[in-house]
């Protein structure tokens, strides 16, 4: 009997290893922003179906993406908050930002009947500062004539993890509200004056859907895929803009710097939606670190090229904005600058 047990045990041990010998294929690991996760999961699923290359992307938040990249635990990070000059200087090697798509951050809420509501920058800031506490507050009713607001408290939902969506949102609030800038500031994780935290864009959307009376910020696609309302937001020119891929693309029509690190919140475009941004994939410029193979580096570069070109067709159906022409040109240049042992990978 003992012999049998040993045999069974051994076969258990050996089975995975024999499988390992067969499947010796390049597998890329990425982690970070939850903002583009629906898009990435679609992209990488199709990439696997067509090329057989597995790309494992875990939506742990933009902060996590940057941290895991600097810890060298992933091949690429995803972030909708670009790294500051200071953070880049601290990194052990040069990190590149490759823009993948545009996304809008929307205010979504859970009210009886879910009417389409309008918001001004000040109202948004005061809700998140905890100064407007009820849905039937005068200031909300004033800009939304004709909508009957219930007499219930506003429950704010924010992210509990380090998030690029939070970065975009707080960057916007800091630009439009002096008080927010002084009290809270902007960042991937901030000290929230009010509200409940939830993990990831999925967590925030899930909680808002779950609890009536809530309001929170999330990526446009998450709201639309879940048939949740998205508030119209007043831009610099005093127009209320419906969040959409088109309106956020219009806002992105500003000259981009060569490293593409730019926020487009509260942008100048007359018809542009003021609360949106790029989402980036972060990689090291020199790929020959930590004994990585040339093969792996090449696959990564090929993937990035594919994401910024062919894969752009997946953006619109999932409510993300395609890369504008100028952003794609800059992305191409950045991808071409990736090197392995000093030699460019892509000519």
């Amino acid at each position, binding site marked *: 009997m003992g012999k049998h047990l040993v045999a069974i045990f051994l076969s258990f041990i050996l089975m995975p290893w024999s499988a390992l010998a067969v499947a010796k294929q390049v597998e890329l690991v990425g982690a970070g922003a939850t903002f583009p996760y629906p898009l990435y999961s679609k992209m990488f699923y199709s990439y696997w179906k067509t090329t057989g290359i597995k790309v494992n992307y875990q939506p*742990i938040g933009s902060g*996590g993406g940057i941290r895991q990249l600097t810890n060298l635990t992933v091949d690429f990070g995803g972030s909708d908050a670009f790294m500051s000059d200071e953070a880049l200087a601290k990194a052990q090697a040069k990190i590149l930002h490759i823009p993948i798509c545009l996304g809008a951050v929307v205010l979504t809420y859970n009210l009886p009947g879910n009417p389409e509501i309008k918001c001004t920058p000040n109202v948004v800031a005061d809700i998140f500062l905890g100064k407007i506490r009820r849905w039937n507050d005068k200031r909300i009713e004033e800009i939304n004539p004709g909508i009957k607001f219930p007499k219930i408290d506003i429950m704010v939902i924010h992210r*509990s993890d380090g998030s690029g969506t939070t970065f975009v949102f707080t960057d916007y609030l800091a630009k439009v509200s002096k008080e927010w800038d002084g009290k*809270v500031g902007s960042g991937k994780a901030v*000290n929230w004056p009010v509200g409940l*935290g939830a993990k990831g864009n999925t967590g925030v959307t899930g909680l808002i859907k*779950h*609890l009536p009376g809530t309001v929170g910020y999330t990526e446009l696609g998450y709201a639309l895929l879940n048939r949740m309302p998205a508030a119209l937001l007043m831009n610099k020119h005093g127009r209320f803009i419906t969040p959409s891929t088109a309106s956020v693309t219009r806002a992105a029509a500003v000259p981009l710097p060569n490293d593409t690190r730019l926020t487009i919140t509260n942008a100048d475009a007359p018809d542009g939606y003021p609360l949106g941004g790029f989402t980036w994939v972060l990689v090291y410029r020199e790929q020959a670190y930590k004994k990585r193979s040339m093969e792996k580096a090449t696959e990564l570069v090929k993937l990035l090229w594919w994401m910024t070109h062919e894969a752009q067709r997946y953006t619109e159906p999932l409510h993300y904005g395609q890369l504008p022409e100028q952003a794609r040109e800059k992305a191409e240049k950045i991808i071409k600058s990736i090197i392995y042992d000093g030699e460019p990978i892509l000519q």
Partner: protein
Amino acid sequence: MANLFSSKPKVLSRTRGLWAEAAFQKTLSISALAILVLLTAIFLSLLIHSSPSLKAFGLTFFFSQTWDPVSSRFGALVFFVGTLLTSFLALLICLPFSLAISIFIGEYFREGILSSILKQVTELLAGIPSVIYGFWGLFVLVPIVRDLEIKLGILPHGVGILAASLILSVMVIPYAASISREVIALVPSDIKEAGYSLGATRQEVVTKIILPYAGSGIMAGTLLALGRALGETMAVTMVIGNSNILPHSIFSPGNTMASVIANEFTEATGRLYLSSLIEIGLLLFLVALTINFIGRYIIKKVSIRA
């Protein structure tokens, strides 16, 4: 290995036998030592990695309620309060039930189908993974709590300290019950019989003889259940609301030490941020350790007395 009694009569085998003997003994002691080393290493690792935050914040870490990643200032008061509040509330809710179960199985129905059903079911309850409690709590319990809050006219979060405590109490009932049951069963029958012979009713024997006698043991069981509740992560994370603001009532959302680690560990950017989270882990470890020691000590004393 297989034919052990057919050792060949060779001169060699004797020394080999001795060698095997020594090797065997050594293996045993090394494994025992390994566990000790493992635990020490865990403690030291936590200590070393939390030293940046220990140095930077010192004692203020315990009393400050600012958890501000933007300006890199960290204090864990909110999480201590969250952990203590949920755990004690959970114990309070669980105590009548666990006590009833232990009296039921330990005294009233020592044998028979009823008690065996109850025993099996509580053991099953202990076996359900924490994440499933959280899932169920989020979809069933949270709406109920929300309705309650609406009736009471409080901001209806649904998620919060109360929801977390309720889920926790369901989770720790089996632990508290199983230890109390053992202690109650240990109460010597002669003192119980002495009570009956004086004409006491069963209720009087239970409340005036058994419970006082088993009191410290029941407390130990409750303490060990508390240890479990303190470290429970997933179920709590899913229903507590993850808010880093000091809770002002049991309906407020909050965050516990374990849930803040689960939420923020992978994305903590910056050395101090990560180290603060590890310090919370270290404290969690130390608290669990202390509670376990006290609990085990009491149980040991009780079982020696019995």
